């Protein structure tokens, strides 16, 4: 009896609270991705082109590289991360406020790319920070970056920003 009641309650909360609020929050998040200004290697030149008038990532609400990382949500790792850069990258990721997203741009950031046998290059950034979208290419075309941003938006849209209903279900139904 209790279980049915809690189940119904969680469903109602999911419908009434979770879904509309999640929609609104996610809508704000996905059109307002501000990238951190962190240039790790040469792909940053093409990221600049992506913000140029031709590809104009600001159409999606992505500002051109922003001042302070305290206000940013998106960490785009432009290419190679060397052993000297690795601790800094981790630090920068930790300093960003939640929620934060990471895009690995270029072959070097995904797997090491050309520098698979270099003595000073980290083969793939997903070993130290979680990555949301990978953009292959060396460097990727700006269209590919825009496509990745759209992919990330899709990912944010599907993500549940608030999940009270399922929390209630998990907590109370197991006990009962």
């Amino acid at each position: 009896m209790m279980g049915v009641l809690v189940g119904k309650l969680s469903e109602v909360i999911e419908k009434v609270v979770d879904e509309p609020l999640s929609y609104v929050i996610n809508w704000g998040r996905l059109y307002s991705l501000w990238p951190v200004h962190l240039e790790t290697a040469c792909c940053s030149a093409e990221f600049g082109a992506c913000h140029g008038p031709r590809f104009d990532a600001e159409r999606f609400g992505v500002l051109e590289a922003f001042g302070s990382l305290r206000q940013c949500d998106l960490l785009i790792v432009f290419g190679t991360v060397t052993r000297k850069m690795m601790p800094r990258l981790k630090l920068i990721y930790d300093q960003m406020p939640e929620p934060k997203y990471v895009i690995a741009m270029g072959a070097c950031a995904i797997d090491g790319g050309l520098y698979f046998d270099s003595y000073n290059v980290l083969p793939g950034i997903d070993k130290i920070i979680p990555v949301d979208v990978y953009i292959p290419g060396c460097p990727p075309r700006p269209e590919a970056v825009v496509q990745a941003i759209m992919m990330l938006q899709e990912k944010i849209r599907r993500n549940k920003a608030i999940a009270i209903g399922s929390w209630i279900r998990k907590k109370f139904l197991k006990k009962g």
Partner: protein
Amino acid sequence: MSLTTERERALLDKIKAKFEDVIKEKYVKPKRIRIDVSPQKIFEVASFLKALGFNQVASVAGTDYPSSNEMEVVYHIVAIDNELRDIVFALGERVSRDNPIVPSLTDVWKSASYHEQETYEMLGIKFEGHPRLERLLLPEDWADIPPLRKEFKLPGRE
């Protein structure tokens, strides 16, 4: 493009006249001269070259020769804005691999400073008299041997 080497010969003769016994001619190609000097005498030769008009260092290249247990440092010197501007002069020296110490030419050419620092870092050749022999490009926690030595193998190779 002239393929004769008369000017280069004349230039080399001028240097040879001054330093008869210390320099060793390696090659004379059109617009390229290479001589080898012993590390003890390189400072004098370099000063003379600068007086001739070679006023900038384009590159300092260190090379490791484990087969003959030697290391080589080559200064590529160019002349900016004078009549020697089309000639690249290579000034080489060789030291033993066991204790690679050579005099720094920073006092002759200031432009050699960062190149020498890089060579020190990448090959472990010490430049005596260099103001700043410290870590430049490699990470702060680098504890391996200098990477451009031949016994340093890339990860996953051989």
